């Protein structure tokens, strides 16, 4: 007899916690002929105008285990974000549980490890998986796999708020730069979040630009630029045309929600065995 409880807990904990597991994203179990994401290399029909709606999958390229995909923390000097002194100091206070500066799981101060919300831009830069995009006349809604979190991008012409209450996901407005490219600006972000898995910092002055470009009917590219003059001397590119494949409209996105009680159990069983040696 199976133990669906424990199995489910451990599968999700593994998906969330372990870098190695990320290649094994289990297929969505439900739906019609949609057992695994579709990946189309070929050119497809032209993109519809002013339309990025659909269910999109980036494969394994959105995981970001070493930090922002276009700027991984891999020791390559070219992948060093242009820190200000304050930025450097903030980076040194971040203790990621992965990458070159990795500490033991018990010693990390990564807010996501305790299931705090990822916020923007980390939702794009870490565990970016199948993402559903809905459009209405006023707004675009992003539905992420990780955290089963939604976020709104207003496209009704409103301006970004002045001096808003910080939010985990900030305040976002978008404009069509051309028929196939939506450019989104986000501000009002919560300083407690990290930009990525490697602990890159941001301040309340952070401004994130997301550029969604629909290449053709079946492909979407996302570029993310970080602009935070307190932490960085100049803007830098965190995602460079991350490619997504369109999925069938009946694709059922797997549930993947960070649960503090699951994490506690996972850490007890798997994550920190050394701590039990005492």
């Amino acid at each position, binding site marked *: 007899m199976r133990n669906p*409880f424990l199995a489910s807990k451990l599968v999700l904990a593994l998906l969330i916690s372990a870098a190695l597991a990320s290649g094994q994203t289990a297929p969505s179990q*439900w739906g019609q002929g949609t057992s695994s994401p579709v990946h189309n290399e070929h050119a497809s029909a032209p993109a519809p105008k002013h339309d990025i709606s659909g269910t999109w999958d980036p494969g394994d390229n959105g995981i970001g285990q070493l930090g922002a995909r276009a700027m991984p923390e891999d020791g390559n000097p070219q992948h060093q974000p242009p820190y200000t002194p304050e930025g450097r100091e903030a980076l040194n206070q971040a203790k990621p549980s992965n990458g070159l500066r990795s500490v033991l799981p018990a010693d990390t101060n990564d807010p996501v490890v305790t299931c705090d919300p990822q916020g923007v831009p980390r939702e794009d830069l870490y565990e970016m998986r199948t993402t559903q995009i809905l459009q209405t006349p006023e707004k675009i809604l992003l539905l992420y796999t990780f955290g089963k979190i939604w976020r*709104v991008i*207003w496209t009704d012409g*409103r301006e970004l708020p002045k001096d808003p209450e910080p939010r*985990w996901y900030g305040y976002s407005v978008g404009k069509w730069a051309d028929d196939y490219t939506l450019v989104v600006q986000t501000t009002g972000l919560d300083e407690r979040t990290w930009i990525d898995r490697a602990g890159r910092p941001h301040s309340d002055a952070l401004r994130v630009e997301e550029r969604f470009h629909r290449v053709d009917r079946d492909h979407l590219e996302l570029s993310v630029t970080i602009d935070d003059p307190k932490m960085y001397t100049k803007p830098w590119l965190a995602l460079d045309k991350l490619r997504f494949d369109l999925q069938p409209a009946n694709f059922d*996105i797997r549930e993947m*929600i960070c649960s*503090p009680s699951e994490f506690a159990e996972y850490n007890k069983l798997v994550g920190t065995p050394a701590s039990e040696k005492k």
Partner: protein
Amino acid sequence: MDRTRVTRNRPLVPKVAPKVAARLVFAALIFSPLASAQTAPPQSATSKQTNTAPAPAPAVDVDGWGPSTNAPVKSQKSAPAPRHDISGTWAPANGALDGGGFAGAKNMPEDGKPEHRLPFTALGLETYNRTKPTIGPRMVLTAETNDPEAACDPQGMPREDLFQLRETQIVQTPESVVILYQYDRIWRVIWADGRKLPQDPEPRWFGYSVGKWVDDYTFVAETSGTDERTWLDLVGRPQSADLRVEERFHRVDRDNLELTVTIDDPKMYTKTWVALDKFPMKLLPASFDVREMICSPSEAAAYNKLIADPASEKGPQ
């Protein structure tokens, strides 16, 4: 004067700690049932409602962002409902507290009345007796609760409908009805493409949902495959893996939606019971920006340390 604004006005708190203030406000919103009264749409003292004019109405853009939004005036005559369409941004018609569920499922509150006693099976009663809620006749101290949601575990289904049901966006696609909740910013999909509920699926916090139109204005969703770890509601009513939830969304007219939730769990209850009975929701303008409200474990810890459990701090060390 706008209470929500005042309580969230940064100059009123020490300048060194805006983050702490924001954390505490959000924690208070999430963890304190009493504080949630403050998130009701602020009523402008100067706005005048008349029976004839649809506007002006009290401003409800509590986040202070976006075009000025107006709530429908209660006496306003609505237009007929569109067919097969429950899309829109909906709010509890009688204020945010109405969807709070602070005594448990609104239609079956834990208030000691015999008619609100649930038809527990023996297992149901036993499971119920093991839950330790933070509110109601069986309440325990915050530090002693085993409410999974107190630790910021997902609410799951059906609790997402029965506790802190607030502004809710519904978006329809040809294949599905997507529900976007305010609380925890959770989205969920109800498939309306004719698929069947899965047999013996991996449990999910939010289960598996399918729905169909039973008439032009009524969409009925069935959910199964939910996770046994969640509670049905804030007062700790239990659920088993056999739980089946029916949600009935009935659009009364353009501006009004009613939600009825029925619980069917033969392991825990001897018969089905109605948890929400035609819960009224009203249409908000499409430009309404839903406030962010996400359970954060670090905020919960800070909140509990500072406010909810002051007795645990035994004076200066």
